[in-house]
């Protein structure tokens, strides 16, 4: 296998054993980024000189017997919502902004000896869909460059899918780590709320915002988050609930792939049974969006009032819509969230994980210009099954589970009880090992 498609932990092991030079690996990554990024737009900013200096330092330390851990010398990248150097949030509004201090997770990655390659493309402020008319050109899906890689952590999905990084940190308010993972054929891990610091992230909706690792394998994503799990646990005896009343909508090809993956969970010894959640994906998305739009509008109100130019069309409209949500509706949404969390706690008394699609669609074509607001605020939205975990705060992982007839990836999502990230990661890892979808890479970019 080409070095750039090796897993984070594989290259880490090779470097620890002094069989691979962090400098050579970083040079190869920078060379690949230099060749592919002009076509795919994953990176906004590339820290070439600094990355090579970090790699050189890692090489010296490892050679001197001072190995810091699995990220030491490994090239990774951050979504452009993390305060780190030039930080734009994908918005023309912040086109000239340079971070004065670095986000907590950036500082942690530096302390772990990681090599930081650059900043990755994002939907504007982690929400508005990228279009071909945006100030920053959109990242493209390596499985079909005319399509979106999914968002909002768009650049992370693209970069990982074509081997332009070994890991990435995204953010996830309603699915922004797991949706690009599903559309791009990689792994996205949203940890339990609060497990990873969000200090130094440009907020979208603070009561729902999460930091989340993305990688090509579940174990790599767990390593990025420093979250331990049992990689030998398997699936035997795992109690898997399938909330089919929650995911009735969606594309038939997605349903087919997810049903096949659920069968394979059962075939590997998991105890699979249907479970009813008692609410619909549209109700969950409505609740999540009302909270997100209200909190985002409050955060941006002073800037909106100032008339400062630079917000993109869709994001500006979403903020104004957030200002139209009255206080009592925000309270209703938070109470709805509390009810959803209570129901999920009941469900997890008799189930270890829930299995469902990540999203009931596959990657759609990049729009030529701003989408109408009715595409975002709709009574029949594209079903994103991701919002649920943001609302109740539990861990969730999207792992590749196959392809559509068009050759586009589909994601299986596993969710668990809050603070039981290890069970969800273990289940996703066991599925990944059995399924081998991780060995598939975009044919255009060998």
């Amino acid at each position, binding site marked *: 296998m080409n070095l750039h498609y090796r897993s984070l932990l594989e290259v880490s092991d090779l470097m620890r054993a002094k069989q691979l030079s962090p400098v050579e690996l970083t040079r190869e990554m920078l060379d690949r980024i230099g060749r592919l990024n002009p076509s795919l737009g994953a990176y906004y900013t590339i820290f070439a000189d600094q990355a090579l200096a970090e790699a050189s330092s890692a090489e010296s330390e490892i050679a001197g017997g001072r190995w810091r851990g699995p990220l030491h010398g490994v090239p990774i990248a951050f979504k452009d919502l993390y305060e780190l150097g030039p930080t734009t949030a994908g918005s023309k509004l912040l086109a000239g902004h340079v971070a004065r201090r670095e986000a907590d997770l950036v500082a942690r990655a530096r302390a772990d000896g990681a090599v930081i390659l650059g900043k990755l493309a994002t939907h504007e402020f982690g929400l508005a869909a990228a279009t071909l008319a945006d100030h920053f050109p959109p990242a493209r899906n390596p499985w079909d460059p005319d399509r979106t890689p999914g968002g909002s952590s768009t650049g992370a999905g693209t970069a990982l899918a074509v081997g332009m990084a070994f890991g990435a940190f995204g953010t996830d308010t309603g699915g922004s780590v797991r949706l690009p993972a599903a559309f791009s054929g990689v792994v996205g891990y949203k940890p339990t709320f609060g497990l990873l610091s969000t200090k130094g992230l440009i907020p979208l909706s603070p009561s729902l915002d999460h930091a989340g690792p993305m990688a090509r394998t579940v174990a790599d994503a767990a390593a990025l988050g420093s979250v331990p799990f049992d990689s030998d646990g398997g699936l035997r005896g795992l109690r898997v609930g399938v909330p089919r009343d929650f995911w009735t909508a969606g594309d038939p090809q997605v349903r087919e792939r997810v049903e096949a993956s659920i069968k394979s969970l059962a075939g590997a010894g998991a105890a699979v049974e249907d479970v009813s959640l008692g*609410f619909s994906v*549209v*109700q969950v998305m*409505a*609740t999540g*969006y*009302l909270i997100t739009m209200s909190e985002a509008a409050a955060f941006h*109100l002073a800037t*909106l*009032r100032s*008339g400062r130019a630079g917000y993109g069309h869709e994001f*500006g*409209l979403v903020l*104004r*819509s957030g*200002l*139209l*949500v*009255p206080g009592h*509706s925000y*309270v*209703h*949404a938070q*109470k*709805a969230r*509390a*009810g*959803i969390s209570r129901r999920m706690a009941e469900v997890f008394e008799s189930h270890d994980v829930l299995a469902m699609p990540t999203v009931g669609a596959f990657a759609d074509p990049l729009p030529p210009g701003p989408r*109408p*607001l*009715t595409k*975002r*605020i*709709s*009574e029949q939205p594209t079903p994103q099954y991701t919002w649920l975990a943001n609302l109740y705060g539990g861990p969730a992982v999207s792992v590749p589970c196959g392809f559509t007839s068009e050759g586009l990836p589909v994601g299986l999502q596993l969710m668990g009880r809050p603070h039981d990230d290890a069970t969800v990661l273990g289940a996703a890892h066991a599925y990944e090992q059995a399924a081998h979808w991780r060995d598939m890479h975009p044919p255009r970019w060998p």
Partner: protein
Amino acid sequence: MAEPEESIRRRLEELGVRVSPEELRELASAYPALLAWMGMAEELARDEDEALPD
């Protein structure tokens, strides 16, 4: 100007936020779905509500 465009314009202006005629049209088009979302959240919240005693 038709309702709800006028009502939306007034509410945003009260908050000190400007809005163009084109933006107003889009906000008004999406407003029924926004109201439907509010209704859904209210319905889900009902079990959590402590109602006034009869």
